[in-house]
């Protein structure tokens, strides 16, 4: 598949939505279903695949073990690579290499520009095909029945949460909401592969990670309504969850600011010698921010154990990825900063799980960052303030919502293993729905945080100027009680 025709199709948006075009076949199982034997990480193609490419010949029982073993040897492999590229004095002529700050570099009399894109796009790691069948030659980290069922249940819960909360906003009961529809596999698949000690620095489309860690439905709803039980004390807009107990940093609206912060958190973990890493999520749009570039660069230079997970969902509000960057997605940027990177089918929960699981081991054992680009699709609107049908066709949205649904795909795999059936399904969905309704009722009736919460926590203790400002405000409220909301205690 020539790269130029691919670019042509992606740039012409009208063609994308034409189902008969073969572009989306790149994602389906019929085309190159696995990585070629020349791994994208290798500088020179090797006869034997190395690094993290697929291994065709191993049986499933040894997969997990092989993963670890192969990964243990990356340092040796890396050293070998160094030797191959290192032009030593043993070479025929020492004139072949020149010394510069940064190391020795071979020179060539051929003036050759590196093309802006390689011939082939970086292939995408996937385990399940569109029907939830594990593909014939596959390499993934095994999961138990309990894990699979929890993963699936949480994906369904996230889906249900999203649809109900979106409606609640439409009914005017909360002011704002952001769904993660279509990205359930990225959320839950990645969360499941991490430990509770790993520090999460989210963007805002990853509530599934918090859900996995045990944040209750009531806690989610309390934050949306900004009532007195909200951990954030009603100070932030909806979906800006945060819980230090769950190692989930409070969501902050500006894009990509969490990336350098992740490096700082990883730095702190490194100082403490903890066996944990920092994990940060961001979208395709974030990769344009300066913080993305500096964050990756810093992580590489400082050997920080960070996992950078990019949810490339195709859209940054109304900006499609073709207008966001010209590179082959986000994964190719990893090497530019000296970072191990992988492209994953973000709608394949098992692939996401495996990739994050392995990335975590790399990050912690080798104290280095890893970049994961999870290709997915933003099924919902950017937020409740957006109507995406204004800039993309409805049938494109429908296609990704139905045929490429990550939850259904994983469901088929779980069912095929005999771990889930229709009665589990209906029981789960109705239970979650009921719990959410109850939680909403409780949250809606609850009081809002008191007036004093407007002034405390700005600093560790209330300073005199804020004390005075609070006093002034209380006097105003006393003078005009009819203008003051009834559900905010004084």
């Amino acid at each position, binding site marked *: 598949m020539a790269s130029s025709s691919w670019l042509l199709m992606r740039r012409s948006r009208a063609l994308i939505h034409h189902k008969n075009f073969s572009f989306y076949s790149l994602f389906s199982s019929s085309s190159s279903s696995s990585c070629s034997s020349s791994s994208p990480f290798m500088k020179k193609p090797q006869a034997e695949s190395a690094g993290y490419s697929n291994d065709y010949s191993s049986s499933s029982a040894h997969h997990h073990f092989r993963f670890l073993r192969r990964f243990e040897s990356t340092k040796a492999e890396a050293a070998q690579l160094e030797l191959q590229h290192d032009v030593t004095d043993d070479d025929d002529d020492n004139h072949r290499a020149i010394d510069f700050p940064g190391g020795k570099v071979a020179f060539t009399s051929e003036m050759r520009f590196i093309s802006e894109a390689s011939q082939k796009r970086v292939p995408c790691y996937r385990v399940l095909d569109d029907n939830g069948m594990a593909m014939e030659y596959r390499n993934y980290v095994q999961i138990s029945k309990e894990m699979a069922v929890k993963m699936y249940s949480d994906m369904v819960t996230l889906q249900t949460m999203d649809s109900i909360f979106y409606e609640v906003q439409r009914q005017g009961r909360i002011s704002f909401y952001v769904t993660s529809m279509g990205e359930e596999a990225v959320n839950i698949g990645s969360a499941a592969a991490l430990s509770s000690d790993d*520090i999460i*620095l989210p963007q805002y489309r990853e509530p599934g990670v918090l859900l996995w860690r045990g944040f209750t439905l009531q806690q989610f709803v309390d934050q949306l309504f900004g009532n007195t039980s*909200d*951990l*954030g*004390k009603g*100070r*932030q807009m909806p979906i*800006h969850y*945060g*819980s*230090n107990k769950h190692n989930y*940093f*409070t969501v*902050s*609206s*500006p894009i990509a*600011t*969490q*990336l*350098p*912060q*992740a*490096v*700082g*958190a990883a*730095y*702190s*973990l*490194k*100082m*403490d010698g903890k066996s944990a890493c*920092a994990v940060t999520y961001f979208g395709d749009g974030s990769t344009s921010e*300066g*913080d993305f*570039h*500096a*964050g990756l*660069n*810093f992580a590489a*230079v*400082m050997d920080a154990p960070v996992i950078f997970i990019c949810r490339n969902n195709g859209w940054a509000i109304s900006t499609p990825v073709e207008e966001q960057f010209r590179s082959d997605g986000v994964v190719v940027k990893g090497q530019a900063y000296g970072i191990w990177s992988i492209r994953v089918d973000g709608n394949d929960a098992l692939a996401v799980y495996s990739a994050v699981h392995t990335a975590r081991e790399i990050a912690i054992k080798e104290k280095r960052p890893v970049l994961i680009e999870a290709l997915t699709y933003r099924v919902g609107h950017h937020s409740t303030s957006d109507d995406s049908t204004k800039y993309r066709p409805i049938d494109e949205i429908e296609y990704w919502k139905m045929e490429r649904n990550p939850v259904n795909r994983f469901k088929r795999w779980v069912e095929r293993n005999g771990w889930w059936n229709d009665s589990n399904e209906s029981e789960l969905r109705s239970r979650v729905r009921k719990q959410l309704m109850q939680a909403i009722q409780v949250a809606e009736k609850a009081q809002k945080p008191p007036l004093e919460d407007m002034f*405390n*926590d*700005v*600093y*560790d203790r209330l*300073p*005199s*100027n804020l004390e005075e400002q609070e006093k002034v405000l209380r006097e105003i409220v006393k003078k005009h009680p009819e203008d003051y909301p009834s559900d905010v205690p004084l």
Partner: protein
Amino acid sequence: MERDPRVCVMGEDVGHYGGSYKVTKGLAEKYGDLRVLDTPIAENSFTGMGIGAAMTGLRPIVEGMNMGFLLLAFNQISNNCGMLHYTSGGQFTIPIVIRGPGGVGRQLGAEHSQRLESYFQSIPGIQMVACSTPYNAKGLMKAAIRSENPVILFEHVLLYNLKERIPDEEYVLSLEEAEMVRPGEHVTILTYSRMRYHVMQAAKTLVNKGYDPEVIDIRSLKPFDLYTIGCSVKKTHRVLIVEECMRTGGIGASLTAAITENFHDYLDAPIVCLSSQDVPTPYAGTLEEWTVVQPAQIVTAVEQLCQ
């Protein structure tokens, strides 16, 4: 750094180079590369990194090579540093210290002569202090490191060479207190950082002319120590503010507003504020000298105020 293993330093060239003004000299040798971290050149990012580290339990000190460069870190300082304790409901604290040399130097050019305190003073959630002597530099630095709030410590490019005898033992100054430099009766002169020295020079002249100025180094730029300032105003009834900030939107402007609001009845004359002009700092030495308030101007201002 010796007392608390969580304290660490990060910034450009702070490690083996010892910092652009040698503030961190010797620390990398003593505490290692990890605790004294050299970062690539991306102010927004290493400030963000400091914030992430602080939220995870460390106590970082972020150095801006020149305060002016921290304009690039404004997003992290304003949106995250100042806000995250509040928006997380108090769950995450950010005990970070952001420090660096600022102010007008000797022909450093406009971009390296910024007074960032004007721009930062509005950010809720942060504290700002300015040191001016070796004694208060040590005390304020210690207080800033131990504070649970994010603190921006403003040093001045021209004050690094000052020498003073200071106590060996540990002492910590208050981040919210002003310093009484010279008690007096006739007029209250409020100043901070390098202008303190211009004021004291002017004070000598004023004393010879028979005036008795009270000089207060406000030190705490956010919040103002209105107690000390207020007591002084009630005594002298006349206020002169001498600052290096520009006329518009500087510390002087806020201080004028605060004093007028709170102590209006005690003033016998309108507050006079001497500041730099609203121009980028010129490179030419003579011009640069006249963008900064000079002792002669201070003397004239006091004379007029006390008429």
